[in-house]
């Protein structure tokens, strides 16, 4: 009898284990009533944005950097009874990897803040049906309120695969305290030629304490797959990585080679950049420019988020400048577009509600607010017309650079192409190869991918 009870107890334990495991796989997330109204749970992923003024809560004292989206979610849930929106907080640095893993496991969120250029989702995902098209939810008039390059960044094969909510550009950030310390005049209106830039960088490289060692360098940046702060320098003579029809590798052109070598020589020959320039340390590079205890580099190129950081978290006396002009005489930079992407939905009714929420967080007022608070430029013309940077001359200067933007090539294999190029660039910047040798090595590997 005792033995029988033991058996029953153990059977129950085994069944309980199986139930727990089965529950882990439960993916039901809503239902649709007879009128076609959907109720259920929507999942949205987002990274930290900005905190309310004065909020220093949290372990790092940065405050709640998700409060904006949390408030929008609460508003939406109130106006849509039965709809629950679950916010998953993901640090930006982890977003591509985490999303990649979830896409592979077909457990993607409903909405995520990614573009379709290949960092987290790619054109291949669109072709496989992972990303939903949003054309049905926008009228021509509504789409007319977005900048054309913003829409282009989310358009593939004539269809819209996301709502753009921000534009960013890469700019040169100049530490004016170090300019003053070295007795160097910054470029007028932030405009300069390559020769003027080199001359300035050399003057800004100095021994502060007279111990015979250089303490401050004129310029620095880093080279790493997926990062493009240094790349506008490679475009200044008219060079670009791929031909317009994406069929040829063109970073081996004389224009590109000359520009790549010139930037590497700023460290290798002119010695106006630290040895760490061209390495893979993103955080260390920024700290060298922005951290009050370091400030060992006077000029660095960064995306616009760094402007906000230099105005808030790392208060710095700085100005925004163009990248120097090369033989084309035209200033150039590289830009990016951010926005919201909807992942594959099983129900049209849910898709409609998800799209409605995406639109509610991307309207004119929200983009205006985000521009002011988060250091990005609005993707909507109507939001830009409200002049979000009227009281922010640095951001206003950076916004002027939007007209200089060149976009990166949109090839399905871009991530692999990018890695091949950037790995060779690393060798140029540490002096192990010339730009010509490095690009000659990259060419057959890249062209093999272009031919696929």
């Amino acid at each position, binding site marked *: 009898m005792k033995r029988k009870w033991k058996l029953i107890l153990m*059977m129950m334990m085994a069944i309980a284990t199986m139930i727990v495991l089965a529950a882990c796989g439960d993916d039901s997330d809503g239902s649709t009533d007879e009128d076609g109204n959907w109720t259920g749970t929507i999942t949205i992923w987002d990274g930290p944005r900005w905190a309310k003024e004065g909020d220093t809560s949290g372990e790092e004292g940065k405050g709640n950097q998700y409060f904006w989206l949390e408030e929008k979610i609460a508003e939406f849930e109130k106006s849509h009874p039965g709809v629950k929106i679950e916010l998953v907080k993901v640090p930006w640095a982890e977003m591509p990897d985490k999303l990649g893993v979830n896409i592979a496991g077909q457990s993607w969120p409903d909405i995520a803040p990614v573009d379709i250029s290949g960092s987290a989702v790619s054109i291949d995902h669109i072709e496989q049906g992972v990303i939903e098209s949003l054309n049905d939810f926008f009228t021509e008039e509504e789409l007319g309120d977005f900048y054309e390059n913003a829409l282009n960044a989310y358009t593939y094969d004539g269809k819209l695969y996301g709502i753009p909510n921000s534009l960013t550009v890469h700019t040169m950030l100049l530490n004016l305290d170090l300019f003053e310390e070295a007795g160097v005049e910054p470029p007028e209106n932030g405009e300069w030629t390559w020769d003027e830039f080199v001359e300035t960088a050399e003057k800004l490289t100095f021994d502060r304490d007279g111990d015979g060692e250089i303490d401050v360098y004129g310029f620095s940046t880093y080279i790493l797959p997926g990062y493009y702060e240094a790349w506008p320098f490679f475009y200044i003579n008219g060079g670009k990585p791929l031909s317009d029809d994406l069929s040829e590798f063109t970073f081996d052109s004389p224009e590109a080679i000359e520009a790549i070598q010139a930037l590497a020589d700023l460290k290798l020959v002119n010695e106006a950049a630290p*040895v760490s320039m061209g390495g893979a340390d993103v955080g260390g590079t920024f700290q060298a420019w922005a951290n009050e205890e370091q400030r060992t580099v006077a000029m660095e190129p960064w995306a616009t988020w760094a402007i906000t950081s230099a105005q808030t978290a790392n208060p710095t006396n700085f100005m925004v400048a163009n990248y120097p002009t090369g033989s084309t005489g035209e200033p150039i930079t590289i830009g990016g577009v951010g926005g919201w992407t909807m992942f594959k939905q099983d129900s049209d009714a849910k898709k409609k509600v998800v799209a409605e929420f995406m639109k509610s967080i991307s309207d004119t007022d929200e983009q205006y607010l985000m521009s002011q608070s988060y250091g990005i430029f609005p993707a909507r013309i109507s939001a830009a017309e409200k002049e979000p940077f009227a009281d922010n001359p640095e951001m206003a200067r950076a916004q002027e650079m939007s007209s200089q933007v060149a976009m990166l090539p949109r090839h399905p294999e871009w*991530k692999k192409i990018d890695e091949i190029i950037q790995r060779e660039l690393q*060798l140029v910047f540490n002096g192990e190869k010339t730009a010509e040798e490095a690009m000659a090595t990259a060419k057959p590997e890249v062209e093999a991918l272009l031919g696929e």
Partner: protein
Amino acid sequence: MLELSLVLKNAGKSLKKTGKQMRKNYAAYLFLLPKLILFTLFIAIPVVWAFVLSFQEYRITEANLFAGLDNYKQVFESEAFRKALINTTIYTVVTVPFNVITALIAASFIHTLGRFAQNFFRAAFYLPTVTSMVIIAMVWRWMYNYEFGLFNHVVGWFGMEKINWLGQTDSALSAIIIMQMLIPFGVGIILYMASMSSISDSLYEAATIDGANAFQKWFKITVPMLTPSTIYLTLLSTIGSFQVFTQIILMTGGGPGYATETLVHLIYKTGFRDFEFGLAAAQSVVLFFIIFVISVLQYRVLNRKG
């Protein structure tokens, strides 16, 4: 025909016997069931699935396409895989013997100390094992910093030029290897100390009577008696070294160039950056066989010597 019926009869008997034994030990099997379910779900099925996937082109929203041996062909033709394999092999060949031998030497010294000192050193050497590799890698990245890192400070004392430890092709892999060599092999030290305690004192007493000195006793008694532990630690360390990943992704990203690219970092990129899960699975299967063959060889060689 008669032979066949005999074989079947024996097989039937054997099955019956197994069934009888299972019924007898049903309680043990039931207790093992949850673990078995978890093992099947999270280890056995993924491993089998990886083998299957290595012959397929992975599609996310539709059925995978059969790719035959294409993925394996790509693996063996890939320059990146070749470089990753060479780097990983160099890393393993240098770090594994060093770590096992230093663990043996450290454990031998600690074993001779008093109880309090033994406990102190045991805890001190085990601490890095329970510290996240992420934290260790971040600290070491600081130590290798060109401008203000600890190593370049030390180099400066001797009047030498600073070294761009992680930024140069010729020093980056060495820097990663040095880091691994200087992190104490805590598990090894603990295991060796436990094994040393079980060596009979009579062996040492007999050796003393025969006139053996301390080194001879260590080399002729302690080291051979620790062979099972050495085999285990060598296998464990080899498997771990072939899977080196965290320090690579945090400290160098595989660069400069492909100077610190390793197999698991390459597999990770192939799978989760390029979304080529079929190719990543094929790379994983190749890595599995490399580790399997090396482990079998190590076991046989060390076991024979022991």
